């Protein structure tokens, strides 16, 4: 009898705590459902695109280019393609969700709630990370069909995928809050995200570039994310992975801080 009562109070306690978490959890759930409902567009399509890149580039360049000794070009390419898609999709998730709800006006449904700016941030951030990781896992599974990849440091692979998608998810929140129209968002995508991700060493090692371009590449945060992620697979890369991890983590903290400031001030959302 006694035990039952304690259990009951324990259960009640769990329930009360979960009620406090229910707000942000609901927002996360909604954000996940939002992309999962249209998974053909948000997951299948980037996976197919990445696999097409893989098919074409590996077909054309396999045997002609060798970046790391003993690593076939196709194998070299796969981690870069996975990471590029992870990053682009993490960005796309938070940015497109925000710009759509702003343009449609349904963002008020969230703005009217007692959710704090931190909870708002975490829900959009986690949804972006999950979208990035889901896309990454599917590309990995598809790529297995081309070549067998070993993973030398799985924890590094996960750390870079997680932090990288967190960084881009946060950047997507900033872009989504800032942009007022779809064309502004498209400019963000085409003039910032695409060039940075293509010029980050997905298709080559920066050591194959002229020195000046090596220096320029080192200013690109995408370079560190891709290099570190690839290091997790092969155990080699252009930069020490811990330095890359610190750069990615540091950039994430800076952007997260900016985002929280924006949300707290109500910038563009609560004029």
């Amino acid at each position: 009898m006694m035990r039952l009562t304690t259990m009951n109070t324990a259960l009640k306690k769990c329930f009360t705590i979960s009620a406090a978490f229910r707000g942000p959890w609901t927002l996360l759930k909604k954000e996940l459902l939002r992309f999962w409902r249209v998974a053909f567009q948000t997951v299948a399509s980037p996976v197919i695109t990445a696999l097409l890149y893989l098919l074409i580039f590996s077909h054309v360049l396999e045997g002609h280019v060798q970046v790391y000794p003993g690593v076939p070009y196709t194998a070299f390419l796969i981690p870069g393609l996975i990471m590029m898609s992870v990053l682009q999709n993490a960005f796309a998730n938070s940015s497109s969700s925000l710009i759509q709800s702003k343009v449609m006006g349904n963002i008020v449904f969230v703005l009217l709630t007692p959710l704090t700016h931190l909870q708002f941030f975490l829900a959009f951030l986690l949804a972006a990370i999950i979208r990035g990781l889901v896309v990454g896992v599917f590309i990995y599974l598809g790529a297995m069909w081309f070549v067998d990849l070993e993973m030398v440091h799985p924890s590094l692979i996960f750390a870079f995928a997680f932090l990288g998608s967190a960084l881009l998810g946060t950047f997507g929140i900033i872009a989504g809050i800032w942009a007022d129209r779809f064309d502004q968002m498209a400019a963000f995508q085409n003039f910032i995200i695409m060039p940075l991700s293509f010029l980050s060493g997905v298709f080559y090692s920066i050591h194959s570039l002229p020195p000046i371009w090596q220096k320029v590449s080192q200013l690109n945060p995408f370079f560190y994310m891709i290099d570190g992620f690839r290091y997790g697979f092969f155990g080699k890369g252009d930069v020490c992975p811990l330095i890359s991890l610190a750069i990615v983590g540091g950039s994430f903290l800076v952007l997260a801080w900016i985002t929280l400031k924006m949300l707290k001030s109500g910038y563009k959302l609560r004029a």
Partner: protein
Amino acid sequence: MITPSSKPAIKINNVYKNFGSLQALNGVDLTIEQGEFFALLGPNGAGKSTLISILAGLLKPSAGDISVMGFDVVNQYQQARQLLGVVPQELVFDPFFNVREMLRFQAGYFGRGPENDIWVDEILEGLGLADKAHTNMRKLSGGMKRRALIAQALAHKPPVIVLDEPTAGVDVELRQMLWEFIKKLNRDGHTIILTTHYLEEAEALCNRVGMMKQGNIVALDSTANLLNKFAGKNLRLTLGDVTLPLSIQPLMRHHDRGEFTFALNDMAQIEFVLAALRTDNIKVIDMQLNEADLEDVFLSLVGKKL
């Protein structure tokens, strides 16, 4: 469910809002007690929605403050918003989800879980949405979207409910249904604040009325008092393009392209008006006599039709 507290449902304290050089709110003061059924009236652009947006935390006041049951909407926004359900004027919806999903989400944001489903069913029933529960928001007709919008604001069972033109674009049947439902909520202790351009609605439902004009509250009283103040009959005469005799000018409340409305306290004044017109050789083309209603009150205070 309703927090017992003696604090006013809403206290608006000298609130200003400007958009650039446009002064949308000019020092609004307004207190609405718990349990009231309050109508906020005013012509387009008077500042009603701006005031509601500040109340809901969607806009920041340029000066002044608002509290909901004693909680400041800026500094204690979590508590304030928890107590508040707002139906926005704009017909917005989320095209990804169906009606029931939206209601579950909306309740969830406020920390409500599966135990809230009974209430959600009650709302769906009360607003005639039960058979649309599984319809995607995108596929609802305009009136149905409006119902869903109202339902969403009620999903967490807020003690203070603000409806910004809930009956715009809604058919007679729903209007009936909606008001029955809202009246029941009011009887159960919920405070109701609404804006509407249908004055008969405000007159029939609300116990108190505030009228806004250019960012100011120009009248604030119980519906009964306002009607009493402007009691009596309205005599509407179609006279054409004429100048009224001086003697009856004080009785005139309003005129619009040859149509003159006179406010009368007793029937004897009809004879007085007609006699004065006859003396001046003004011909009466048409004549109507009716009870003064909120519209007349509004007209004389705001000087504009709603």
